[in-house]
Structures are given as structure tokens and as C-alpha cells.
């Protein structure tokens, strides 16, 4: 064990009190942990909670649906025991009828245990179906499939369709938005400020939506995962992470002798932030499919497509005064849009609400960071309030929020 003081200066030589050896320090560090372990042992062994609950107190049973698939063999449901006590799934109802089922690995789920139920139910395409699990104590847990459509299976067709959806939702709209670059680069200072403010407005709207979606997903996720905290700290981590990436890029630029303009770094950050956000959106779309809500997924697709066209504008707005090559622009577009494809595949394949929360959080944090970056660029050295009060900025902010609101309104 290396000692913390220089080896030659002992306590006797200097007259100072001898510091404890490494072994003693280690013991002191470990002692509270040992005591804590003992306490936990006593708690588990003596069960003071059981004393409070008394004999025959009903167990706390919680089950959460993780995934529901509709296929040619019927319904497949993955459920998670989110409660403290073991839960036994005794019977399964589909649409108010008891139905045979098999449970793998078994009908009894320990805390955070998972089971896959296979129910050979002749579901009807386009109808709504309700699954109801009845536990051994008669408690019931429901899941509604709003519109029954066969769940895509992960074959070539699955990847093809999700790639297409990602293209529709992420890549193509962003690319269309990038086409505003010539307009942006020919515009005067006031127009550029308007465009940047418009982008900030768009992103603020997205931020609020991401916050709402994330917290909603957090509420629907099993409570053991503490979705709200996960969302807030996930967003914070993404914000700080992007801030660090921005700082690193600027340092690199300074070291390289300012080969790249500041607009470029900003555009890169905006594209990264939007890319992270779009990954979350893709996840939501894929998840809608995996929860047996394929038709709702379509609604999401239309909404995201409309919204995301404005994201392309957000990426090119900082590039107004920069020389841009087509290849660079394409890379920025891919960075912002392509993660939607990956998100849709991940969401469709391994969806769980908690991943949704995490990615929505990362998206929200990224957007917040981008908003701050853009504001810095718009405002420069002046005070924020003074700058917002100018006509182009105020108008841009308002227009950005209005565009998002109206497109959101149209797709419901």
C-alpha cells in the first residue's frame, strides 16, 4: 500500500503526530460498511416491516407490461414485476375471456423479474384488444392494444421499413430544411438574427415537448426505475457533455489556428443535439410499434416529419457567414437526421419505457444546450433582454414557436 506522505519524513523526525498506516485507513473506511452490512442482515432476518404488516397481510403486487407483440401465433406479452413481493400470474384474460397461455420462464416473477407470456388468441386486425393478467390473489393488470396490427418481426423487411420511416421522419425533412442555406447566406444581419431566433423558438418548443414526453414516459415506467430522476439527470448529463464537446472543439480550433469558423462549431453542436433528439423520436416511433400500436406510430411519423423540416433550418442558420461545401452540409444533415433510423430500430426491437425516458432526457439536454449556444451567438456581448427586444429576434422567436404550434396542431 503506498503511503500518502513522502517516505523519508517520518513523524519522529519532524516531531509531528505520526499519521496512521494504510491498513488502518482502510479499516476505518471499511468499518462503517461492515456495520451497514450487519444492519441490513438484521433487517432482512428480523423483518421489522413484516411485524408492521402483520400475519396474512396481502402482498404488494405490481406488474408492468414491457412489450406486447401481435403475430400469427397470437399475442406475446413481456411483463415485469415492479413490486417488492413475488407475483404469480394465475390466469390471463383477453377481452373478458379466460384464455390459455404459457409463461416463460415460469408464472412466478420475483422482484424485477420478467416473464414472457404466449397467448394463442385469434386477435382481429384493426380491432382493440385488452389483455388482463390475474394474479394468484386476484389482482388484475390491464394492457390495451388500441389498434391491432401485426407487429413487424426483425427480418430484412423490418429493417427496411424502419429505415424508410427513419428516412421519412429524420433524414429527408432535415435535408429539405438544409435547402434554406442559400437564402440564409445571402441575407443581411437582421435576417440572420431572425433565422437564428426562429431556430431558438423551434428548439424551445421541442424542449418543452421533450420534457413533457420524457416525464410522461417516466410516469408510465415501472417506479423502481425512478424515471423522473433519470430524466432530469440524463438531461443534465447530456447538457454538460455537449458543453464539454463544444469547449474541446473551440480549443482545437484555437490550436489549429482558426481554420474553422465559430458558426461551424455551432452548426455541428446543433446537428449533434438535434441528432440525439431525433434518436429519441425514432425510439418513440419504434416503441409505438412494439407496444402493438402500429397505427399510432403512423401518427407520430406524420407529426415528426412536419416538425423535423424546421430542424434543417436550425442546423444551417449558424452557417450564414461561413463558406460551406456540399459534403460538409450532407454530413451535418446525416448527423442530425440519421439517428432517427437507429432510434426506430432500437425502439422497435428492444423497447422498454426506461430507455425511452433516458433517450428523451438526452435529447432534451442536448436541445437545451443548443438553445444556450445559439442565444450566445445571437446576443454576443450584449445583454439578453436588450437583444430580445429587437424586432428581428422577437419576431423570430414568435415565428419559431408559432410554426411548431401550428404544425403540431395540424397533426393532432
Amino acid at each position, binding site marked *: 500500500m503506498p503511503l500518502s506522505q513522502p517516505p523519508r519524513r517520518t513523524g519522529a523526525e519532524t516531531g509531528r503526530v505520526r499519521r496512521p498506516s494504510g491498513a488502518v485507513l482502510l479499516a476505518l473506511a471499511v468499518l462503517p460498511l461492515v456495520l451497514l452490512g450487519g444492519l441490513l442482515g438484521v433487517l432482512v432476518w428480523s423483518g421489522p416491516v413484516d411485524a408492521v404488516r402483520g400475519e396474512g397481510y*396481502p402482498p404488494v403486487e405490481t406488474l408492468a407490461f414491457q412489450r406486447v407483440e401481435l403475430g*400469427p401465433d*397470437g399475442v406475446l406479452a413481456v411483463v415485469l414485476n415492479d413490486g417488492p413481493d413475488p407475483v*404469480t400470474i*394465475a*390466469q*390471463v*384474460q383477453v377481452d*373478458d*375471456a*379466460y*384464455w*390459455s*397461455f404459457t409463461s416463460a420462464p415460469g*408464472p412466478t416473477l420475483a422482484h424485477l423479474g420478467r416473464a414472457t407470456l404466449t397467448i*394463442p*388468441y*385469434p*386477435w*382481429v*386486425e384493426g380491432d382493440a384488444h385488452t389483455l388482463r393478467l*390475474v*394474479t*394468484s*390473489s*386476484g*389482482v*388484475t393488470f390491464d394492457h390495451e392494444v*388500441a*389498434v391491432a*396490427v*401485426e407487429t*413487424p418481426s426483425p*427480418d*430484412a*423487411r423490418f429493417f*427496411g*421499413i424502419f*429505415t*424508410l*420511416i427513419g428516412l421519412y421522419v429524420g433524414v429527408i425533412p432535415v435535408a429539405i430544411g438544409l435547402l434554406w442555406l442559400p437564402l440564409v447566406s445571402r441575407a443581411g444581419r437582421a435576417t440572420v438574427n431572425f433565422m437564428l431566433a426562429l431556430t431558438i423558438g423551434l428548439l424551445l418548443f421541442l424542449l418543452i415537448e421533450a420534457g413533457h*414526453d420524457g416525464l*410522461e*414516459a417516466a410516469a408510465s415506467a415501472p417506479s423502481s426505475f425512478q424515471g423522473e430522476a433519470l430524466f432530469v439527470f440524463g438531461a443534465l448529463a447530456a447538457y454538460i457533455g455537449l458543453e464539454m464537446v463544444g469547449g474541446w472543439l473551440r480549443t482545437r480550433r484555437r490550436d489549429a489556428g482558426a481554420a474553422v469558423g465559430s458558426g461551424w462549431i455551432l452548426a455541428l453542436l446543433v446537428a449533434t443535439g438535434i441528432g440525439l433528439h431525433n434518436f429519441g423520436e425514432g425510439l*418513440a416511433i419504434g416503441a*409505438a410499434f412494439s407496444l402493438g400500436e*402500429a*397505427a*399510432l*406510430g*403512423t*401518427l*407520430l*411519423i*406524420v*407529426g*415528426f416529419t412536419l416538425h423535423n423540416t424546421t430542424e434543417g433550418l436550425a442546423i444551417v442558420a449558424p452557417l450564414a457567414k461561413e463558406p460551406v461545401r456540399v459534403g460538409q452540409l450532407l454530413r451535418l444533415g446525416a448527423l442530425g437526421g440519421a439517428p432517427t433510423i437507429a432510434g426506430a430500430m432500437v425502439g422497435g426491437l428492444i423497447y422498454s419505457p426506461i430507455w425511452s425516458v433516458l433517450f428523451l432526457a438526452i435529447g432534451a439536454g442536448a436541445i437545451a444546450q443548443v438553445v444556450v449556444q445559439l442565444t450566445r451567438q445571437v446576443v454576443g456581448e450584449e445583454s439578453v433582454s436588450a437583444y430580445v427586444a429587437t424586432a428581428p429576434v422577437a419576431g423570430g422567436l414568435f415565428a419559431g414557436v408559432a410554426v411548431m404550434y401550428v404544425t*403540431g396542431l395540424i*397533426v*393532432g
Partner: protein
Amino acid sequence: MRGRADPQNRRWSRRAWLRLAGLGSLTSGVALASQDGQPDLVSASAPDHLGAAMGPVGRVSTESFDPTQFLRTWNFSNLPALERERFYRETPKLDGTTLREYELFAVDREIEIAPGVFFPAWTYNGQVPGPTIRATAGDHLRINFVNQGSHPHGLHFHGWHPPGMDGALAEQQVMPGDSFLYEFDAEPFGVHLYHCHANPLKRHLHKGLYGAFIVDPPSASARPPADELVMVLNGFDTNFDAENEFYAANTVASFYLQEPIRVAVGQLVRMYVVNMTEFDLINSLHLHGMFFDVFRTGTSLTTTESTDTIMLCQGERAILETTFRYPGDFMFHGHQAEFAELGWMGLFRAEGTRAT
């Protein structure tokens, strides 16, 4: 989440989905080479319709309550003589009637109402339905009731009795640990019921405190000999949402599907059917392949109706008589399909050869 749709735009979005999926399959068909033999996403066929896939999974334990045995048991006739004496004694009286003495007790007990599903019931003598009580019109009944449960309970019989024996008023509730002697004559003849009338009434009923009370006509030859079966129609609200999750004849969901009621071809079968279903206004019994004669409440010796489906209100009951004409399985169930699919379904298995 965006697009958390209401039913209206669900319709819209379904159409949109079809369009998109059509476009998707078209485009990906061009983009991806290996598409042959893949089922089309839109026109995917429904799963195989396995009739046997319906119904609860597994078997209940019949150790503490056997629905098959319950069918043909009254006055504790299922118990060995010595043990039976603890709960039921009969003493002939000089006027030709019989003094029948019963020991009933209320006790909290967890019962298995479907395979693996346990219901925290309130029971008479540990079973739901409670023991069937059967007497001849004019007999004198003396029922000693002991409340071993955790709530006030009591016995309320349908039939003629003085108000003091009604067991329904608040002051007539028997407190936990207390007992009460109910004494009255068995009248009028018919198929009746008894149940707890303590408040809150609904809960005391759906927790399981009820049973059949059969009063035979005074003349033994009034009804021809028959294979007699007691069926109490009931349901269980296991998640306490004021709706039943399980329905059955004699408590155990779909039990008689797995263990058909065995009857003989050509022999008269008499069913004493009592509807004790809570929450739902009515229940019914429908028999496949046969008709039955109906004696509503059993108070007349003349049938009023020949049918294959009878409707019963809560607390209503009837005697049904039929003679199976063919060997084989005859389904019976509540004709509310929902009840049937939630457990109120069974089979008669008629054995022997067809009588000519």
C-alpha cells in the same frame, strides 16, 4: 407523447398506416432483394383458431371443496356418520315431521376459485356456497349459528318465518365470537336460499356467505325420483372493482368443463338452481341439445315452461327437470357470453344407451 390518439383519429391514422405500409412495402420491395415468401404485413392472417385454447389454465385442488361432490350433497351427507352428527342431527317427531338440527359457523377462509387464484372469502363452514340445507315442508329447523369470522354475520333464510328469525335487522347481527339459535318451520316447499344479511350487504354476499335451502313437498311422492343436483350460480370480484372477474356454477370457474357432470341417459335429472351472482342484475342457464321443464322457485308441482334457457334475477331460483336423450357431452352455461367466457360454463356427460 405526441399523437396519443382518441378513437376518431385512430380511424384516420389506420388508413394512413395502410397507405404508408403499402408505400413502404413497395419501396422496400425494390430496395431489398429477398422479399419472397414473406407474409404481407397488411393482409397478415389471424392466428389459428384453437377452440381448446379458451378457458382457465390448470386445475384447482379439490381437497377442501369438490364441486362434483357439492352437486349431490345436502344436510352434510358427504361426511362419515360420526362426523356428520357434529353438524346435523335429525329426530322424528310424533306428528310425522322431523326435527332437523344444524351447526353452522361463519369463518374467514381463502378459497381457490380458479386454478391458482385464491380469494379471501367469508364462508359458512369453510365452503362457498355454504352447506345445502334440505328439509320437508313442515319440518322443524333448529340452526345453531356461531360467528367465528372477523365481522358481524348472521343467517337470513328465504321462506316463512317469524320476524325474530329473519336475521336481517342491524340488531340481529351476530357479533364475532357470539352465536344465535335460529328456529322455524321449513315452509313453503320449493328451492330457496339463505345468506348473510349483515351490512354492508353487497360485500357480505359477494364474499361468499350464501347457500341453497331446499324444501321438499310434504308428500314424498309429489316429485318423481330423479338424479338431483344443486347448482348455485355465483361470481367473484377479485380486484374489488364491483365487477366479477370469475363466474361459475358452484364457485370454481370452468370446473365442470374439465370434470363433466356425469348423468345417465334416460334418467330424470332435477337441478336446483339458485342465482347468487352479485353486481350483475341477472344470470342465466342455457342447456345445449336438450330442453328442460321449469318450476320457478319450485313452489308448484306443475311446470310453467319448457325451454332451454332460463333467466334468473339476483336471489331468484328455479327447479329444472330434463331427461337426456342421447349419450355424449352436453354443454351448459350462462347465456351472457361474457359470463361463459369468464368461467360460467360446463358439460353434462350423459352415459348409457339411448332409451327407445
